[in-house]
């Protein structure tokens, strides 16, 4: 019974949320479009261009605190001169239904002010007793540093409206987002984003990161449509980073997640 509900829910409401943008961005209300991080691979690959060393990251999310429904992610990025190459793997679903996505990103920085990126995805959908389907999609993004403290970002996913093909009632969402982030001090970062998904809602999001002491960061955010609240914290210890986040949907409840990354 539970599966039937979830299945219905997945197919009708929340397709775009399948990409998990990592505990840091999620804790900030999924406002990563103008932020820079290894997890930019999952939100706006242009943010990858600021990486200076190779980074590896993994993440695990439990959707609506349901043990069966989860997202697992693994990311790897390596810079080379002005370029950064990124590789992402993500698996989402439960035993009888799952989606996998493999992405390859190329991000490049032009001077200190402009990042651009392209990303290619391979998608696979598997439903027990029904079979599977595959498709490809592209994403493109840019980030522009308007001042020392202000970053602007824009990102488009699946602009050519790639689909799984006939008979599969699951779409690859077509999403356009843009946003801005501003560092009020070395302690406070505030980010906003506007996101439009084709055939679905328009969402406005806002998030904040606060460096409490030394290596401890507190984060929070909200999104307007659907109304969701987000919170989390991060620990940066030398090369290692640990981020924890949860999002809260008024009807569906909490989705906790954890992510770790290591910078070489």
């Amino acid at each position, binding site marked *: 019974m539970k599966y039937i509900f979830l299945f219905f829910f997945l197919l009708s409401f929340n397709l775009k949320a399948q990409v998990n943008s990592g505990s840091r961005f999620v804790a900030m209300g999924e406002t990563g479009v103008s932020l820079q991080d290894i997890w930019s691979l999952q939100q706006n690959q242009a943010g990858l261009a600021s990486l200076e060393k190779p980074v590896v990251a993994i993440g695990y999310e439990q959707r609506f605190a349901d043990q069966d429904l989860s997202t697992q992610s693994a990311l790897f990025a390596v810079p080379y001169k002005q370029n950064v190459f990124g590789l992402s793997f993500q698996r989402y679903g439960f035993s009888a239904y799952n989606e996998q996505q493999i992405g390859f990103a190329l991000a490049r920085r032009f001077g200190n002010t402009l990042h651009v990126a392209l990303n290619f995805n391979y998608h696979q959908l598997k439903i027990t007793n029904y079979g599977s389907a595959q498709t490809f999609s592209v994403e493109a993004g840019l980030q522009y540093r308007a001042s020392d403290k202000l970053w602007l970002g824009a990102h488009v996913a699946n602009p050519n409206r790639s689909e799984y093909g006939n008979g599969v009632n699951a779409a690859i969402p077509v999403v356009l987002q843009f946003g801005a982030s501003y560092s009020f001090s070395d302690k406070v970062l505030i980010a906003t984003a506007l996101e439009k998904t084709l055939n679905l809602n328009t969402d406005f999001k806002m998030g904040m990161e*606060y460096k409490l002491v030394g290596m401890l960061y507190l984060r929070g955010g909200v999104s307007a449509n659907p*109304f969701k*609240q987000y919170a989390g914290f991060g620990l940066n210890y030398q090369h290692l980073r640990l981020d924890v986040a949860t999002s809260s949907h008024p009807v569906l409840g909490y989705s906790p997640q954890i992510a770790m990354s290591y910078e070489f």
Partner: protein
Amino acid sequence: MSFRNLFIAALLVFQFLLVKTVKSQTENDPIVDQIIESLSENAKEDVDYSDLAERLSFYRKHSANINKITFQQLQELVFLSPIQINTFLSYRNENGPIINLLELQSIDNFDLETVRKLVNFVSLDAANPFADVSIKSLLKNGHNDLLMRYSQIVEPQHGYQIPDSVKKSKYLGSPQHYFARYRYNYGDNISASLNMEKDAGEQFFSGANPYGFDFYSGNIAVKNIGKISKLVIGDYSLQFGQALTLWSGLGFSGKGADITAIAKQDVGLKPYTSVNESSFFRGVAATIKLKTISITPFVSYINVDGGFAAIDTLSSSADISSLGISGLHRTQTEINQKGSIAQFIYGSNIQFHQKGLTLGATAYHTYFDHTFGAGKQLYNQFKFADNSLTNTGFNYGYAYRNTYFFGEVAHSLESGFAFVNGLISSITPQVSLALLYRNYQKDYISFYNIALSEASTAINEKGFYSGLDIKPSNKWELSAYTDIFRFPWLKFGVDAPSQGYEMFSQLTYTPNKKIRATLRYKFTNKEENDNITNAFNTLDPVKTQNYRLELGYKINQDFTVKNHAEIAQYQKNTNPSELGFLVYQDLVYNPIQSKFSGNVRFAIFDTQGFNSSIYSFEDDVLYGYAIQAFQARGSKVYVNGRYTLKRGLDLWFKYSLISYTNRDNIGSGLDQTLGNKRSDFKLQVRYQF
């Protein structure tokens, strides 16, 4: 009628009285108005802001010495956040006396806006010490303030026109509203006040009111005699903690544009000076201060208004069906309910305050001479149904660096609990954060509870509030909050547990001292019964949105102009949405040196129904705070003015006219007036000696 003439004659007599010089006045000034407006984002019709206006006006006139101002006094200037108060006090402790008010700008967490407001209420002058107090000096150095107000709706209302021979409910008194108040202040330490009011429709020196006014309220208060830091005999109010256990008089349970106001600042015992005829205590109360501990015992006995359910044949006495809070006693029914229930309250608060830490505990017992009837509906089955109640509560506040933590836990014995915990933090000089979690059980009971809540009373609610205020520069300010709430039990008009959320944002642009532009958006999503008539309804989502644009600018020294446009939108489920629209133009004339000042407003409104009505603040005579609920279609104009006859003798007048294009008569029932226009006027005189 002759008494009315006598009263008016008395008003006129004051014109001819000789007056001696008093300190120059500042009247209903924009600063006080702006502070009050920012505290209550959503104006409600039935709130009396005069108490707060009076308090702020007092400091405006008797500015406090910045080097002596106390924690309590700073709290009374409601616009300062607990963090600002704390940083100010520790700054003064560490750096010694403040030499120049400009120094305030260098204190952490004091932005330009705050300093601009604060300098209106403080000064560097040493306060005049009133050392010896004798009867002679009380008369000589005391400050007397007498104010009288007369107002009336010009068009006759239906309630006055029913002949005596007809046995129907009618207004028994005359349509005039009279109000008189007297204040005596001797420095900051001794004060006396007397308020008298006759509402429109109430009898005056006749019928139910042989002694003149319908409502009398007064008190004598002294401060700082030895260990007694405050003593009030007569009418008083009590405000403790986060308003969950005990908070009477003016308070704000709603959420406003000022996000730091979610932390309530309790001022403890205060002489009651409002004309609200409910929510105050009558008796004796004192605050005794022993170093870091203050104890406030209080006792009160008062007759409150109440309605009774039809007498049960089995039990001999009738149960209370409702408490009356309007203070209106115009019809026979209302007169019968007046003071029909005796309420006896006693209790105490104890407070510990040292540096940034405040801990408080409150316990009090309320006794009624009648029993409250049990709730007959499913939604109100947890209501108070007894004749006595004991409330207890514990509250805390702690300022640590740039963060202020606060909270309260309250318990009504033999029923529920309620909790509230929050923090406000200036994480950088530009960014402030506010968070609040609340959980009020459905069976928590307090008659003096106005803690932060979405519903009108802080019971049966869980919620989480988060707010952010960003000032990227002196010119820009963005304040935004979201609040998510849940009502675990049914409510009136909501036949199931429900939930919802609210989002608010306001952007203010102040390029210089002359221009101020505000853009505001608010969105609320809640659940209410659907429109089908049923014993039990299913719930429909209800969305309300409000857009507001306001632009104020000073043309020159004398004139200020304000444009205001507002849209309200209400939509239940997928029904067509209901729209409301209001636009008004204000012109304010307020020269620095002139006997005359005043303002004019012209408003046009068009709303499609009750749900899209728009509430708006209006300028009024001094200490009067009018709020207009705009409904239907039409226009409104008012003229408001002050004239200083002599130093110490001021006159105010206000005339307003509302006219509708799609209504043939205004109001309903006894309140109704025929025709599409309704006008009223107010006259006020104040004599200070």
